[in-house]
């Protein structure tokens, strides 16, 4: 069956900003989807406000709308574009939910837009718990038994029927409070009695308990002719109970027999056929550890994080094939893109093992719970490929970039910890559990005991034990002895890095490297080919291993090659924007005649790790050792380290020392910019002002210096990302604490303290220099005053409140700094402006987070220019940032506080947002209001209610008066806490007092109002030295903010942002926001270069 002939134009919904649970994997699946559509000559329209993605490049998509993925906005785009079909499966749950709304409200019917692929009814059957259960029962697929009970008697009957153990879930309590497992009648009675009392509706759910069962996933494809197959299965290292997004995952499964593998495969297919999925989906299972009994947990009827992972695990392009299936193609009609001769109707065979480990950033969040459980909290993930479990696991641990040189041999491994604590960590896992297992083994806990506590299969535990045994061997080894070669070879096979071996041998990495090169212990390059070498692969999807003795590829000589280092693991502060930079660099290299653009990266969520983006993809570690292994094999012209964020940037010095050539700005110049102390010295030399600063020599000196310049002071470590450990100290005590923290993060680099200028504006520039000409891409003005991390700030291009003279000053400073640093490539400089005086605070000689925002808003692809510069060519555009386009771009951060129980949503100098969006509009308020909605901030309705609570004294509180007045003029009801209310009432704002949460008994109370959705917006600005009061977590302000987050009420903690919002509400009619594509905006830019 060829594709449906009525499809000419297709609307694709994206997933919006990166948030916990919806990350860059949807850029990958969306990009593949668009590619597959274009191949068919189909016109595409994409709605996605995530400007940092590759899919929102006009290069890839037909038309791009940077708009919120909500039914209101999508309807407007549909009315304008009139597509034939819509794809809902490539933009995560955001797109799926929006699609269901569009269908339910009749919008799709009204405009005759067909849902391609999985029909809405099937999507709904997978989304609704009860409907899903019914569907599974019809298909003879065992769902998890569960029933609700309102009395102990009923609960007992249900438990009897289901069989013990059961889990008692308490309906409607926050965070699953009161739930518990009952292994017998007595325990059940107790838990149910307690649960019913705690539940608001006096109800509990009795569910089959499958804790410590294995968690298994299958990725399933199905076409319109009912051909159905599983592309990949995956086994969670963590047992049931840990969200799969937070689980360590191994693919293919390791501990399942053929009987189990194919039993679950078959019923997965039965389930998917019954549901009527067309395209791709993911199905999750619980598998008993003592029998072949299993239960289906859920089906994701769309591309998911797991399906992106499965694509990278197998080389099978799931999103691409799924797209073709939605157009009417059948699986056997499609070709396996890797072999180019075999059919896509097959199930990949792997001859390697892959391990995914999530990356958390929980330590960044004040008060956040570090346990892993049913709620996903990780912000990124890595995938490692190896020929044995140990190799893959140790690679993966290094890839996490959490200061570990592998699973074992880390200095902190020997830090004392009580057995009681370790046992608790095993039974109640946190983000650190993997390291606790090896610690437990070191302490002498048996594999059986660790299994009993953690539910992690002994197969995996034994492998960890192997690594510990090898560490012991290495520590005892005599490098000159006869066994040395054999043991080092075996250690390398088990994924030990040169550094790990060096630690064991008390020597340095270079010595080990030399030893193994002399003894011919080098890794081989292996290809991922989907068929375990049965057919030759045409693609260059590669990894390296010591589990082999032959390279799969012939390494060409005399070819122009450039290696681009990708961004590695995503975390707060480093996300899809750096993938955008990496991919655009590869494309630019190709445009400039480089024969082989080689990507090294290991992040399975990304487009850059799609094997058909670059000429060669090494899915590998970003460590000096591995990059040099590749460098030695490939012999490239050089390496680009400046487009992938902090990880590659920090490697450039070491790579240079190892003899690699770095393209672009030299490592020495990078060092001058990154090293706070050297950079500040340079600014002094250039006579450019900066906040008073000093390098930390001793804590006493620091205190003296702080006294001299006056508190508050900013403590900043060098070579860090996203303001990690950056703090504002308001007194001596906090200064001392922060200095210690900073010293820990920054290791061998100095810590600098500087005057924290309050009430200053923050401004940034992004640009490129080729050694002669300086291109300033844009001047970006932050809405929030300095003190909010630039990654968390709202930014606008062009600036809205910056005098022309100040902008000229910034242009001038930028020129001087860039020239002084000999920049050949991208740069980003951050400025403070107070009383029209420009101060420099930071300069990064690498592509910045805002690169895609600047490039798309200004119509000039800065990465194209940067690549020219790095190749030693001249940039080919001259443009002043003062020459402005006829539109405004506004970038707004996206937070994921809801997902992080306990986390305080207050903004500060350490970055907390997980993603961002940007919208373009006719005016600031047009773009800003769209961007807020795109970042899932519910804009309060015109006659809504707001709660205001301002910390500090009268002066502080008075600053909110104009904002409150403006809200009142728009007919908002104003509520406030007592002291704030007094100030407002005195100033003529009609304000009702709501009592604080701690006075829960006094009405009207804030908690009730939040719960009952009587408040549409919370403005809560904490006292300015709030940062100092770390221990005081249970302040009223914190409780108000946290409760607002729990009930999904937007919280604004910054006055400038509140002002901007009021202003936007005043100026803008929400029904009248502009609906224009990025293409339309760009076409109006006279200097467009894209």
């Amino acid at each position, binding site marked *: 069956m060829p594709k449906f002939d009525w499809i000419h134009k297709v609307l694709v919904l994206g997933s919006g900003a990166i948030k916990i649970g919806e990350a860059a994997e949807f850029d990958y699946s969306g990009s593949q989807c668009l590619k597959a559509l274009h191949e068919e000559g189909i016109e595409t329209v994409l709605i996605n406000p995530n400007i940092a993605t590759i899919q929102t490049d006009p290069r890839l998509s037909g038309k791009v709308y940077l708009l919120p993925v909500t039914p209101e906005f999508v309807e407007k785009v549909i009315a304008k574009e009139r597509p034939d079909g819509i794809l809902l499966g490539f933009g995560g749950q955001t797109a799926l939910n929006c699609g269901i709304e569009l269908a339910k409200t009749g919008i799709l019917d009204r405009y005759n837009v067909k849902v391609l692929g999985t029909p809405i009814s099937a999507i709904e059957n997978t989304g609704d718990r009860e409907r899903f259960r019914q569907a599974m029962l019809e298909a003879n697929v065992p769902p998890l038994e569960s029933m609700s009970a309102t009395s102990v008697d009923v609960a007992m009957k249900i438990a009897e029927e289901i069989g013990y153990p059961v889990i008692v879930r308490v309906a409607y309590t926050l965070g699953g409070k009161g739930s518990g497992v009952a292994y017998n009648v007595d325990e059940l009675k107790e838990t149910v009695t307690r649960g019913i009392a705690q539940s608001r509706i006096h109800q509990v759910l009795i569910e089959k308990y499958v804790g410590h069962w294995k968690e298994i996933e299958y990725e399933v494809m199905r076409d319109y002719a009912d051909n159905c197959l599983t592309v990949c299965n995956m086994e969670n290292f963590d047992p049931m109970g840990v969200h799969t997004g937070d689980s360590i995952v191994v693919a293919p499964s390791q501990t399942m027999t053929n009987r189990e593998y194919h039993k679950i*495969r078959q019923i997965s297919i039965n389930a998917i056929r019954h549901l009527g999925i067309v395209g791709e989906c993911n199905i999750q299972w619980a598998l008993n550890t003592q029998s072949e009994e299993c239960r289906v947990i859920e089906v994701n009827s769309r591309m998911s994080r797991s399906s992106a992972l499965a694509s990278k695990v197998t080389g099978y392009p799931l999103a691409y094939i799924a797209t073709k299936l939605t157009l009417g193609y059948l699986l056997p009609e499609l070709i396996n893109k890797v072999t180019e001769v075999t059919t896509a109707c097959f199930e990949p065979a792997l001859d390697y093992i892959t391990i995914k480990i999530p990356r958390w950033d929980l330590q960044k969040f004040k008060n956040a719970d570090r346990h892993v459980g049913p709620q996903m909290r990780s912000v990124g993930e890595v995938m490692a490929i190896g020929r044995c479990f140990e190799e893959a696991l140790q690679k993966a641990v290094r890839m996490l970039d959490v200061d570990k040189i592998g699973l074992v041999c880390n200095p902190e491994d020997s830090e004392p910890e009580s057995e009681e604590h370790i046992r608790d960590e095993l039974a109640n896992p946190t983000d650190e559990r993997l390291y606790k297992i090896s610690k437990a083994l070191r302490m002498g806990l048996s594999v059986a005991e660790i299994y009993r506590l953690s539910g992690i299969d002994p*197969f995996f535990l034994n492998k960890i034990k192997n690594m510990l045994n090898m560490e012991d061997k290495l520590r005892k080894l005599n490098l000159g002895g006869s066994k040395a070669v054999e043991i080092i070879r075996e250690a390398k096979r088990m994924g030990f890095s040169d550094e790990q071996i060096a630690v064991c041998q008390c020597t340095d990495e270079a010595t080990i490297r030399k030893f193994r090169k002399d003894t011919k212990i080098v890794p081989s390059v292996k290809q991922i080919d989907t068929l375990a070498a049965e057919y030759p692969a045409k693609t260059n999807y590669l990894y390296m291993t010591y589990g082999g003795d032959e390279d799969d590829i012939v390494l060409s000589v005399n070819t122009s090659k450039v290696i681009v280092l990708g961004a590695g693991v995503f975390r707060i502060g480093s996300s899809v924007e750096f993938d955008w930079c990496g991919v655009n660099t590869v494309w630019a290299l190709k445009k400039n005649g480089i024969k082989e653009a080689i990507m090294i990266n290991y992040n399975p969520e990304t487009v850059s790790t799609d094997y058909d983006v670059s000429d060669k993809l090494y899915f590998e570690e970003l460590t000096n050792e591995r990059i040099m292994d590749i460098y030695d094999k490939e012999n490239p012209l050089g390496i680009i380290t400046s487009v992938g964020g902090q990880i590659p940037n920090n490697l450039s010095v070491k790579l240079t020392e190892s003899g690699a050539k770095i393209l672009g700005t030299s490592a020495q110049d990078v060092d001058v910019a990154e090293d706070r102390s050297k950079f500040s010295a340079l600014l002094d030399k250039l006579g450019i002002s900066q906040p008073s600063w000093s390098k930390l020599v001793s804590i006493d000196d620091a205190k003296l210096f702080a006294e001299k310049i006056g508190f508050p002071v900013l403590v900043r470590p060098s070579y860090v990302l996203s303001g990690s450990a950056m703090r504002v100290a308001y007194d001596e005590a906090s200064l001392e604490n922060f200095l210690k923290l900073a010293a820990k993060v920054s290791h061998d680099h100095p810590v600098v303290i500087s005057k924290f200028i309050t009430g200053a504006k923050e401004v940034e520039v992004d640009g490129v220099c080729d050694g002669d000409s300086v291109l300033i891409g844009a001047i970006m003005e932050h809405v929030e005053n300095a003190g909010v991390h630039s990654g968390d700030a709202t930014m606008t291009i062009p600036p809205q409140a910056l005098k022309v003279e100040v902008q000229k000053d910034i242009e001038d400073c930028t020129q001087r700094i860039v020239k002084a640093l000999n920049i050949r490539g991208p740069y980003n400089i951050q400025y403070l402006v107070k009383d029209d005086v420009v101060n420099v605070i930071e300069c990064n000689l690498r592509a910045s987070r805002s690169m895609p925002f600047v490039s798309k808003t200004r119509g000039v692809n800065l990465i194209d220019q940067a690549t020219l510069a790095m190749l030693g060519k001249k940039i080919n555009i001259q443009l002043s940032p003062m020459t402005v386009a006829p539109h405004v771009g506004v970038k707004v951060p996206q937070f994921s506080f809801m997902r992080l129980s306990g986390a305080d949503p207050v903004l500060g100098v350490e970055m907390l947002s997980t993603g961002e969006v940007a919208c373009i509009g006719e005016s600031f308020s047009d773009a800003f209001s769209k961007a807020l909605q795109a970042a899932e901030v519910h804009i309060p309705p015109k006659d809504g209610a707001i709660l205001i609570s301002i910390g500090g004294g009268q002066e502080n509180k008075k600053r909110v008066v104009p904002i409150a007045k403006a809200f009142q003029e728009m007919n908002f009801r104003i509520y406030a806490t007592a002291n704030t209310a007094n100030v407002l009432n005195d100033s003529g704002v009609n304000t009702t007092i709501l009592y604080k949460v701690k006075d829960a008994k006094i009405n009207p109370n804030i908690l009730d109002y939040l719960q009952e959705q009587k408040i549409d917006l919370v403005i809560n600005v904490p006292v300015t030295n709030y940062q100092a009061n770390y221990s005081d977590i249970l302040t009223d302000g914190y409780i108000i903010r946290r409760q607002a987050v729990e009930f999904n009420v937007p919280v604004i903690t910054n006055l400038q942002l509140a002002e901007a919002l009021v202003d936007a509400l005043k100026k803008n009619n929400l029904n009248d926001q502009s609906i224009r594509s990025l293409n339309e905006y760009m076409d109006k830019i006279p200097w467009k270069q894209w």
Partner: protein
Amino acid sequence: MLDKSKKAVLLLKDGTSFIGKGFGATGKISGEVVFSTSMVGYTESLTDTSYRGQFLALTYPLIGNYGVPSDEIDELSGGLPRYFESDHIQAQGLVIHELCLEPYHWASVRTLDKWLYDEGVPGIYGIDTRRLTKKLRTHGVMLGMLQVFDSNEEPDLETLLKECSDIVDPNQTDLVKEVSIKKLCKYNVDGKLTVVLIDCGVKFSIIRCLLKRGINVIRVPYDTSADEILSYNPDGVLVSNGPGDPKRNTKTIEAVRVLAEKIPLMGICLGTQILALAFGADTYKLKFGHRSQNQPALDLTSTRCYITIQNHNYAINMETLKQTPLEPWFINPNDKTVEGIKHKSKPVFAVQWHPEASPGPHDTDMLFDKFKKTMEAK
């Protein structure tokens, strides 16, 4: 416990050597080296009689993870062992990258090493199996020699290489005779239908698939005559899988020629080649065979394509089917080889893969239902 100091060598006839470590039994043995890309199912594969005379090289690198299950008998399945496809390991030897020394699974009673040792089968681990696979993919399957040494022995490659030139191709021997049942055996489930199963080295799961459907099975030796088979008054005949060159099974071919005209008949794997030969079509040896659990089989009569487990070295020549009353039913979309055939007018069909799965996917389980229906319709 495995003695990790035992060395082992796998030598191919062209002189390529792989030096690794030995497990299982010590000793020296020759055979044909084939690779399978199956990621699970080593217990089922090793006991599959189709691997008779062959070294099984597994491309998946981590093997033995879930140990080896017990020999327990499944009374409900005619007294066959619950977990295996025949009574013992059939492959000459096992070739893998990494051997799991500490498996964990509720059904496991011994390690893979112990099992091979108990059964006297040698194994080699610690070699680059991908290099081996690429070699076989390029040169085709090759004869070779595997030697597992004692812990104090050092390999002598030169002597081995000399011996390697004298290896007899197992395909030139009567492999089927070795693996077929010696005398008739009945599995009675009091069903309405009875099938005579011609055992060319049948996988037990084929018997299980019939019994599960309430079909009585009379399992007869491969060389049983058509008259004798018909004398049992069966409702249908199933010609099983088995090892080696199909053309050597002249008696079976002869019997099938008669039976296919008279009675519903289903063929599996070798049984398919025998059916084709019986009607005058020809077979040939594939370069490196189909051995995996992910082989697509495209139904030429519909838009359906199934994922199948295959294990065959030989295939039917498509052209030669034209002169017969048989027609191609399934093809492999990858190399366009014939994967299934059916008779144009009679209830006779056969597939080149294993619908009984075990190991492998259950996609085509319905072929047994189809067989049952044709017998009921008779």
